[in-house]
């Protein structure tokens, strides 16, 4: 083999090839990434980045010990709870028929892709009001009235609490309520009024929590829940699947029963941005 390495025929820019090689081996700094982006228009850099990435991956597999360690059970559980298959444990006993249609698809220019959903839920039923909080505990019935009381207690506890009102993405929608979140206790509640009743057999609401420490790409799954027929305000507990360091935004999407693998963000009725 010749020691003189010429860049790929598709990549005439030497610097571009250097950056692709650096990226595959060490990753890039922000400045280098910017430089790569500025050069990438010159050639099929995306395809080349894939080839470099595969080469580095194959090198790892070829040089690393064949033995690997078992994924610790707690880490496996964390992965599954964040991005595993749907595992509803109990359906609401008496879900009223949808009182009105769900919100129509809501185009949004939000740039974040919603990540994988974990969707364990418990069903809660009382007096015609069905609530499925995101709790993964498995079917422990909790009175909605208790949620309301717990929310008030959290607000009055004196501990630091984030409280932010929902903003409908459809300006004409008459949806109210708020989010109350305790970063210390890592728990909170959502209230809703005017949010359309859903049929859990068809679709469910899903909460996403955007954490400043994780960036916009990987919001934390806050659980799936349902809104059933009934008057007044619905209170839903938040079930963050993993710790949230600094909540900066909450978002509600409408997804298939149990949540989604990747949200297409086409149905996003509510946002609550922490100012």
């Amino acid at each position, binding site marked *: 083999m010749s020691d003189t390495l010429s860049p790929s025929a598709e990549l005439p820019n030497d610097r571009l090839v250097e950056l692709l090689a650096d990226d595959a081996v060490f990753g890039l700094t922000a400045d280098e990434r910017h430089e790569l982006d500025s050069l990438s228009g010159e050639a099929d850099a995306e395809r080349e980045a*894939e080839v470099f990435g595969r*080469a580095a991956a194959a090198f*790892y597999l070829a040089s690393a010990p064949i033995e690997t360690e*078992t994924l610790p059970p707690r880490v496996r559980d964390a992965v599954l709870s964040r991005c*595993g298959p749907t595992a509803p444990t109990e359906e609401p006993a008496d879900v009223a028929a949808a009182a009105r249609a769900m919100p129509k698809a809501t185009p949004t220019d939000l740039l974040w892709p919603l990540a*994988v959903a974990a969707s364990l839920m418990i069903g809660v039923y009382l007096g015609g009001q069905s609530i499925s909080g995101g709790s993964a505990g498995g079917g422990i019935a909790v009175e909605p009235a208790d949620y309301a009381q717990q929310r008030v207690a959290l607000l009055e506890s004196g501990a630091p609490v984030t409280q932010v009102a929902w903003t409908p993405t459809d300006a004409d929608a008459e949806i109210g309520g708020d989010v109350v979140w305790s970063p210390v206790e890592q728990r909170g509640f959502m209230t809703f009024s005017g949010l359309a009743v859903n049929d859990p057999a068809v679709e469910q609401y899903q909460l996403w929590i955007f954490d400043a420490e994780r960036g916009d790409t990987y919001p934390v799954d806050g659980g799936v829940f349902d809104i059933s027929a009934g008057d007044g305000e619905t209170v839903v507990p938040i079930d963050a699947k993993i710790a949230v360091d600094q909540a900066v935004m909450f978002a509600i999407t409408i997804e298939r029963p149990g949540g989604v693998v990747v949200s297409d963000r086409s149905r996003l009725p509510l946002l609550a941005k922490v100012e």
Partner: protein
Amino acid sequence: MTAPLLPRVAAGDPTAVEECLDRYGGLVWSLARRYCGVAVDAEDAVQEVFVELWKSADRFNESLAAESTFVTMIARRRIIDLLRRRRGPTSGDLVEDIVDPSATPEMGGYELTEEVQRVRGFMLQLKDEERRVLELAISEGLTQTKIAEITGWPLGTVKSHARRGMMRLRKLVGAESDDRSAMATAKGGGTA
């Protein structure tokens, strides 16, 4: 040859997700442990890798690379990005708290593919210095600075060896991928 799982993941098959964790969980965990300096980073990294993997599952093309190679590529990228975003480049030095007493060595759930066997042959075609730098960087997850410390080579020399080694490897692996892709196309095979 074990049937790939990612096409099923991309198709929304929930059982494939757990099978994928069974098959590649150890591989990703081991990689995260090598690259991350603290246990919490390794655990977060594994979660982010699998989230990224589910999102990228439809990009997997069996005619271009083995599934384990694709998983490793996604895992390395995600972990490197995570480390750079959180606290800058890692030293790559493992600390005690990363060692989980419940973790036991096992044979990888993934197959040692023919592709990997061939890359072992390719590695012999690299210069010793190039192979040394790539082993420290890719296999051990060490930074350029750390590699310079270990080898005693100037930082620029480390970068140069890494680049030249990667360009050489890219030509070998790329040529092979092109061949595989062409063969798959000729046979009407391939996925995604």
